């Protein structure tokens, strides 16, 4: 949505002039104005200390789970963050909602650094940034009814809904996420995985937040149910003008839902840009390898794509390689990669040309490579138009459950 708006803004130190300008502006802590990013993350880091000894603990090192992450989130936009397990994407999510305190860096919500807030000021800000968790089975308390789960945020922020109106509010929320409002007194075990995820989403919406951080919200669900929940998230975003930070490892889903995408590797964003820039014109070798490894549901794709198979495993975040952290698995790695940390900025060769490859990429030897086969190269046509019968997914699931899961 806002992908075309200064695409390199503030995401790297060594970038073009406009970046430096915008950076200077931010540092002056200018008041928030309409059109500025609603959330600005700068040089965010989370290091977990490794200690030795029982009584006198000495720090012998650190797990650098997140190690310098920058991005902007605009109002009404979805930023997708992809990466393999252990790349720090979930830790970023936790810091955004203040479940973890950053070791360094800033998270500016409307210009105000929330990572240093505490007490009442923090509580007020937290209302606006809510989270949807990955596992719909463990993120709902089995001993609370759905009404209590969704209504619990109101206990903490009573100013949002006075006591008398809460039940009605919860029922409205159930309706919004496509569940039957009469289910308010049921317990989580009476729902299927997809429905539980809807409950988790309803809880996230309870306080009318501006930003929702969703950490792998659909990866625990079956394929046919996944689509229902993705559509729901799409609809809610339009309806409530939400900004999403959508964290996932499934690249296809991220492309579907995101306006911009950031690719993380070992605690850093290595490439960030609009969905078309990242998927159709990737310039970082890791992004290219990641995209080429995604199995495409089309047997004809076998012949049409070059698969880049990476060797070895992701290095331990306690022992990050010098220079470029991807160099141990990169087929392009040279001496320079070992000595010099590549900055996340528009690579020099694309800086002056108008091409979709002109987006931030942290590689010394960035070059464009086409890895995702286009529709024209495949025999299988794209998905048909969505069915015309309105909000079928939600309704269907809700009504069916009535028969299926009544104890």
């Amino acid at each position, binding site marked *: 949505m806002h992908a075309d708006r200064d695409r390199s803004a503030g995401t790297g130190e060594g970038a073009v002039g406009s970046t430096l300008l915008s950076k200077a502006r931010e540092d002056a802590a200018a008041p928030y104005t309409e059109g500025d990013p609603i959330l600005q993350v700068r040089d965010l880091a989370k290091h977990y200390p490794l200690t030795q000894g029982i009584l006198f603990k000495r720090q012998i090192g650190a797990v650098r789970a997140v190690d310098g992450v920058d991005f902007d989130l605009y109002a009404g936009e979805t930023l997708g963050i992809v990466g*393999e*397990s252990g790349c720090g994407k979930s830790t970023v999510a936790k810091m955004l909602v203040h479940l973890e305190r950053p070791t360094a860096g800033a998270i500016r919500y409307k210009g105000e650094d929330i990572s240093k807030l505490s007490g009442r000021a923090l509580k007020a800000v937290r209302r606006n940034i809510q989270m949807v968790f990955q596992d719909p089975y463990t993120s709902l308390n089995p001993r609370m009814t759905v009404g209590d789960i969704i209504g619990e945020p109101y206990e903490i922020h009573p100013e949002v809904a006075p006591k008398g109106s809460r039940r009605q509010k919860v029922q409205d929320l159930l309706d919004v996420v496509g569940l039957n409002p009469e289910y308010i007194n049921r317990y989580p075990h009476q729902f*299927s995985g*997809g429905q539980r995820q809807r409950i988790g989403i309803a809880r996230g919406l309870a306080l009318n937040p501006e930003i929702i951080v969703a950490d792998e919200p659909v990866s625990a669900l*079956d*394929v*046919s*149910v996944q*689509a*229902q929940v*993705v*559509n729901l998230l*799409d609809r809610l975003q339009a309806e409530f003008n939400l900004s999403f930070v959508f964290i996932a*490892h499934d*690249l*296809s889903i991220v*492309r*579907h*839902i995101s306006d911009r995408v950031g690719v993380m590797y070992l605690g850093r964003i290595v490439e960030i840009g609009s*969905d*078309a820039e990242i*998927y159709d014109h990737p310039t970082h070798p890791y992004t290219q*390898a*990641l*995209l080429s*490894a*995604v*199995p*495409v*549901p089309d*047997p004809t*794709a*076998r012949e049409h794509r070059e*698969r880049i*198979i*990476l*060797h*070895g*495993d992701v290095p331990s975040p306690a022992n990050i390689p010098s220079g470029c952290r991807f160099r141990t698995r990169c087929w392009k790695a040279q001496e320079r990669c070992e000595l010099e940390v590549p900055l996340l900025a528009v690579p020099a060769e694309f800086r002056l040309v108008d091409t979709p490859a002109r987006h931030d990429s942290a590689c010394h030897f960035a070059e464009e490579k086409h890895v*995702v*086969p*286009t*529709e024209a190269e*495949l*025999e*299988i*046509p*794209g*998905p*048909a*138009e*969505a*069915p015309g019968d309105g909000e*079928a*997914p939600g309704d*269907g*699931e809700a009504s*069916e459950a009535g028969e*299926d*899961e009544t104890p």
Partner: protein
Amino acid sequence: MLLEVRDLYVEFHTREGVAKAVNGVNYSVAEGETLAVLGESGSGKSVTAQAVMGILDMPPGKIAGGEILFKDQDLLKLRPDERRKIRGQEMAMIFQDALSSLNPVLTVGEQLGEMFVVHRGMSRKDAKAKAVELMDRVRIPAAKERVGQYPHQFSGGMRQRIMIAMAMALEPSLIIADEPTTALDVTVQAQVMDLLAELQRELNMGLILITHDLGVVADVADKIAVMYAGRIVETAPVHEIYKAPAHPYTKGLLQSIPRLDQKGRELYAIKGLPPNLTRIPPGCAFNPRCPMAQDVCRSDVPPLYEVDEQRRSACHFWKETLDAR
């Protein structure tokens, strides 16, 4: 034919009643062939595989009918000790979660070597040498040093390689891989699938690949069987099924996955939920979720119609489904 499953029925007796997990499944695998069994959780794909391997928990499970022919002999009629001889030597299984399938208190070398001690009567020392050889074969770096390590010292991808090594150890003629790459990251998933396909070609084994991921299947399978509520609803060679599915469920599945190459409109979503296996709807089990359902679908169970020589579809309206695209 290497393996033929004929009209298999499996039930589970639970407190809520009898869950009919597998309801008349037929499939076959030849040497060197890869059959992918595709389905969502609860579709009966894993239960069928467990019945073939003979590792179904009985009770509560019960094989209520059918035959499992392996090299022309019915496995269900064998004595437990005869069955045990086949398991491991002739057929082997790779499980989804490598960490919980490996014994945490034994080194990987001991676990790999155990196969040779038990089945081939080798000495511990020879078995260990064999274990190193196997680890080399599945390309675990520094196999000699790592043979004495424990499972937790390996990464997820390496553990899955050990599982593969274990399954390959006695060079079986059939391997069943139950979601072998689901727990792995995409880049590692690609490595592991490649390895599996390569070893299969080398040993000319039959491979049954159980998965819910339509992408993985497209890359490696020769033919596909789609399962829903304990039945096979469609079988076809891999190219045909993606080009023109002949069952509305397959079609819905294919349409509901977002694609890497385009930013979609709203995703097609199959409405509703898979049925509760203790109360499978009468007629076609898919009828409450099917956009094409008619009265006949609610009353008559569709047989597996012959679409062409190699394709079958359990839909009364398979012709319409094929034409509708």
